């Protein structure tokens, strides 16, 4: 039995990306395997670890808990979409680098998406708000401390840039 393919068109990082997908293909598999956007990582594949976080219409969601066909006619931002237009790192990405907000890097794309979504809606978060925002993302290296510091550093830098 051949599976039905569903035609989709998703705006991914500002570009319209067409596709033909089986219904059971997860959004994260489509992004990685078809679009070759391998920045988004796959961890647990059932909604626990947060590594696959992407933004759907600007809000962070788990890309393993959505089928690609559901993203049809929506807007998706992956970690690749966080960089500046010239390809250089964003303020938040630079801050992760500087504050040692990563070690092995597995959780990093999810952490960046969750933190960026926080800073988009709340440019000056408290430590508790940062911890809450990344509460759905597991990191086994950093103990989270440097990730929190990286987000604080980014918030400070963004505030300065805005002046």
């Amino acid at each position, binding site marked *: 039995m051949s599976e039905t393919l569903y035609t989709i068109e998703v705006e991914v990082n500002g570009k319209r990306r067409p596709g033909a997908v089986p219904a059971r293909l997860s959004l994260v598999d489509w992004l990685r395997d078809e679009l070759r956007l391998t920045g988004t990582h796959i961890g647990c594949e059932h909604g626990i670890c947060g590594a696959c976080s992407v933004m759907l219409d600007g809000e962070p969601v788990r890309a393993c*808990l959505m089928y690609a066909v559901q993203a049809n006619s929506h807007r998706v931002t992956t970690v690749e979409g966080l960089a500046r237009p010239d390809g250089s790192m964003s303020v938040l990405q630079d801050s992760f680098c500087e504050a040692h907000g990563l070690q092995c890097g597995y959780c990093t794309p999810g952490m960046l998406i969750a933190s960026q979504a926080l800073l988009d809606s709340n440019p000056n978060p408290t430590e508790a708000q940062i911890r809450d925002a990344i509460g759905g993302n597991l990191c086994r290296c950093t103990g989270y401390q440097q990730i929190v510091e990286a987000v604080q550093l980014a918030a400070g830098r963004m505030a300065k840039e805005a002046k």
Partner: protein
Amino acid sequence: MKAAPFEYVRAASVGEACELLARHGDTAKILAGGQSLVPMMAIRLVRPAWLLDINEIPALKFVKFEKDVARIGAGTRQCAVERDQALAARVPLLAQALAWVGHLQTRNRGTVGGSLAHADPSAELPLIAQVLGARMLMRSAKGARTLDATEFFAGPMTTAVHPDECLEEIRWPIWAERRTGSAFTEISVRHGDFAMVAAAAQIAIDGDGRCTRAALGLGGVGGTPLAFPKIAARLVGTKLEDGALQDAAQAAAAACEPGSDLHATAEYRRHLARVLAARALRAAREKATAA
């Protein structure tokens, strides 16, 4: 791809969803936020032939108020409910419970109706639906009917919703008493996980601090979330002294039959039930007193 193959259809309206359900019956599953169903499909606990996506039905996403009822569309995202100030003022248990539900990424997709229809006995929204006596409106091609929370929750992951029905709306009672307080608390392995035990309480008092109405419930200690209307009614007329609250918590804990699993023994769950019920009652009393 982890899920078994299925056909996908996006319903544009509740009417279309009902027609599709009538046609496909129990070979179809409704896909709301997917935060429970998609993982269950990934481990192939559930293998529907048809997945009926109701995410793009605007008519299922609303919050409306009537005199003593807050009506919430079943497809309303949990994050939208959590941020709704008017709801927080009228049905404060909703935001209090949602603070314990999953994480931001899951609440951005997860829906109110999806959580209730999934009916996990340790989940937060089913518990407060039970405590407040919410009413569920279900629709099928044949018509609509409503059920009380006590009738709606039939067992672990089991509701009274028929295979051809779609949960359309949840009606949450608004307590009119000015001095009303409520509280939700739970213990879980990590914040955002399902509760080992959860407790919710709501209390109204008069000008003298005497209880005029009370509701209490526990989750994670039975096949469905449990409410204890008779035990809570004993608090009415009292001044809600610590001893009275302790007695109510003790009685509620004694009335439930928790099970043992990897995370907690039945004995520990019963202990938590007593402690958390007392905490929820005391916190609700403090808020009512401050109101």
